[in-house]
């Protein structure tokens, strides 16, 4: 299950959706807004996405994880719009027969999401300024990977 939402993520509902009688474990990663960035106080993060492509890339990630590990269910939910400090911006959950594949797949999903899914965050600082996150200087990553 993949989703983008403007509303706070119902983490309990995401986890409930991952349960299955065959599963021996569920691993969940929750990304939250931190109150500082590079030494500056952050009030909130504002996320935007190229929504149809973001969903396609998220679905592609889900398929890749399903092919690579013996998993039961996957959830990838990303919030868009303004996310205040302490609230969840992303929830990734994986259920599987055993914890090893659940941990590995969950880590793979968040790592590749951060590299490839067209979602951007803008940091709103306490001093009233805002900045897009992510350096424009970083070298171009391999586009053939996806």
């Amino acid at each position: 299950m993949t989703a983008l939402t403007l509303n706070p993520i119902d983490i309990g509902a995401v986890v409930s959706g991952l349960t299955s009688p065959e599963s021996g474990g569920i691993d969940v990663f929750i990304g939250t807004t931190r109150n500082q960035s590079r030494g500056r106080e952050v009030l909130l993060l504002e996320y935007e996405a190229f929504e149809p492509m973001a969903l396609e890339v998220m679905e592609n990630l889900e398929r890749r994880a399903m092919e690579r590990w013996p998993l039961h269910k996957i959830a990838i939910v990303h919030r868009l719009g303004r996310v205040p400090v302490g609230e969840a911006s992303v929830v990734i959950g994986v259920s599987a027969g055993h914890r090893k594949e659940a941990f590995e797949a969950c880590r793979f999903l968040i790592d590749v999401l951060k590299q490839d899914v067209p979602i951007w965050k803008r940091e709103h600082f306490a001093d009233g300024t805002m900045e897009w996150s992510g350096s424009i200087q970083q070298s171009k990553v391999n586009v053939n990977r996806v």
Partner: protein
Amino acid sequence: MKIRLRLFANARDLAGFAEKTVDLQHPRASEVFEYLASVNPEFREWSRSIRLAVNRRYVDDAHPLQEGDEVAVIPPVSGG
């Protein structure tokens, strides 16, 4: 040849628009960078960190473009 250009996040801020239909002479993704540099020279420093997606799939700079393609200008992503 006309393509539909879409820009996001800081790329949109640099260009000053989110969407535009652009007429290109040479049907390659790399020409999009030339066009962007003509809009704002700051895009030249940026081109190494920008990825292009044609019809919602990442492509390399040599990718041939077709009439009516939707070309998304994807600055470094920062979801999560």
